[in-house]
């Protein structure tokens, strides 16, 4: 058997090897000049429960609209087609992974951590006035997806990495690196590439652990890094880590942020998280 690599783990995964078909249908419809918002709304309507969930998100603390948004077509107009496509993808991927079982990791806690990182990434992006803040939401949401794949497909290696981290007081990503020669961010990167997500998301996930040592500066990686540090540091959910990750001081410098900004970022994260967590991770009720 060939030695394990991040790419081989992603290529052989049986969990979520490819993206939901609905994502490609939306992609094709968005790119087609002939399609209308109603066409997009119809595609979303084909997936049971999705439209209801998206409407709840559109009316949540993530957005500040003057009145309620009652139809998908209206949500597409106000929030944007790309943005809604990314939210739909987030919802569908969480749905699929929620059914998995891993002995060492609670799925609910894992996605709580991912969701908090996603919200934090979006909050930071909006603070920095980056365009298309949903891109950052998705990169934040998927930042540790490589670990999820490792835990579901290779539970024996996952257990070993946890024991190693615990015994030596290591960060779990350092233990992964010692054990495998690469860490979960590399697996996540390989998986996102396999899913054909834009390079921006892939790079953001790949370099989120230490953005300063990335070959080229990636603002997305810096944002996801800081978002993850906030979410882990404030213990939103649990994704296997016993400690907050190391803060990369270069990431804050790149983003032009300083210590005094953290309080307002954390407050905004808390506010949105309390509202959105039950919508995305609550029991499925349509």
């Amino acid at each position, binding site marked *: 058997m060939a030695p394990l690599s991040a790419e081989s783990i992603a290529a052989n995964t049986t969990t979520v090897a490819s993206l939901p078909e609905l994502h490609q249908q939306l992609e094709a419809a968005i790119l087609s000049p002939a399609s209308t918002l109603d066409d997009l709304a119809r595609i979303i309507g084909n997936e049971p429960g999705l439209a209801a969930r998206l409407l709840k998100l559109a009316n949540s603390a993530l957005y500040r609209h003057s009145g309620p948004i009652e139809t998908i077509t209206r949500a597409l107009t106000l929030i944007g087609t790309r943005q809604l496509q990314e939210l739909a993808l987030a919802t569908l991927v969480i749905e699929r992974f929620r059914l998995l079982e891993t002995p060492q990791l609670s799925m609910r806690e894992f996605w709580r951590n991912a969701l908090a990182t996603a919200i934090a990434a979006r909050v930071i992006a909006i*603070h920095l*006035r980056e365009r298309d803040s949903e891109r950052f939401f998705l990169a934040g949401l998927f930042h540790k997806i490589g670990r999820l794949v490792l835990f579901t497909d290779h539970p024996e290696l996952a257990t070993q990495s946890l024991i190693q981290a615990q015994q030596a*007081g290591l*960060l779990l990503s350092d233990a992964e690196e010692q054990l495998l020669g690469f860490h979960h961010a590399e697996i996540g990167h390989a998986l996102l590439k396999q899913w054909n997500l834009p390079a921006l998301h892939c790079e953001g996930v790949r370099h989120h652990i230490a953005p300063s040592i990335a070959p080229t500066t990636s603002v997305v990686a810096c944002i996801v890094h800081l978002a993850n*540090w*906030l979410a882990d*540091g*404030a*213990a939103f959910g649990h994704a296997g880590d016993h*400690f*907050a*990750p*190391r*803060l990369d*001081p270069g990431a*804050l410098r790149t983003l032009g942020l*300083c*210590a*005094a*900004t*953290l*309080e*307002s970022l*954390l407050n905004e994260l808390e506010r949105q998280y*309390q509202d959105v967590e039950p919508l995305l991770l609550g029991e499925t009720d349509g």
Partner: protein
Amino acid sequence: MQSLSIQHAQPGMRIINDIKDGNGRILLPADCTLDERKLKALRSWGITEVVVDGAEALRPGKVELPEAQSLQVEAIVCERFRHNDPADPAVEEMKRLVFNRVAKQLGYLHGTAQR
């Protein structure tokens, strides 16, 4: 020199640096004294922090707890951030915020307003 979150800035404080927007345009010049109107304007411009005279002394601290509880919370926070540089101002600030958060989660903050 330390900056202060706009939430904690108050009328009467004197700003030390020019406050500029993203394009480098000066919104408020150095040395001017904040009042309600200027604070409101700064918030509406999306400014989140200001450098004011004596900010260090004005920065909010940790919540006050009895010694045993305080030590317990401090231990949790220090353990959680053991892979972080304690001398980094961002780490220091985050530890303060997390200290208050953990104290609240453990139910040590009596009489604090619930969300």
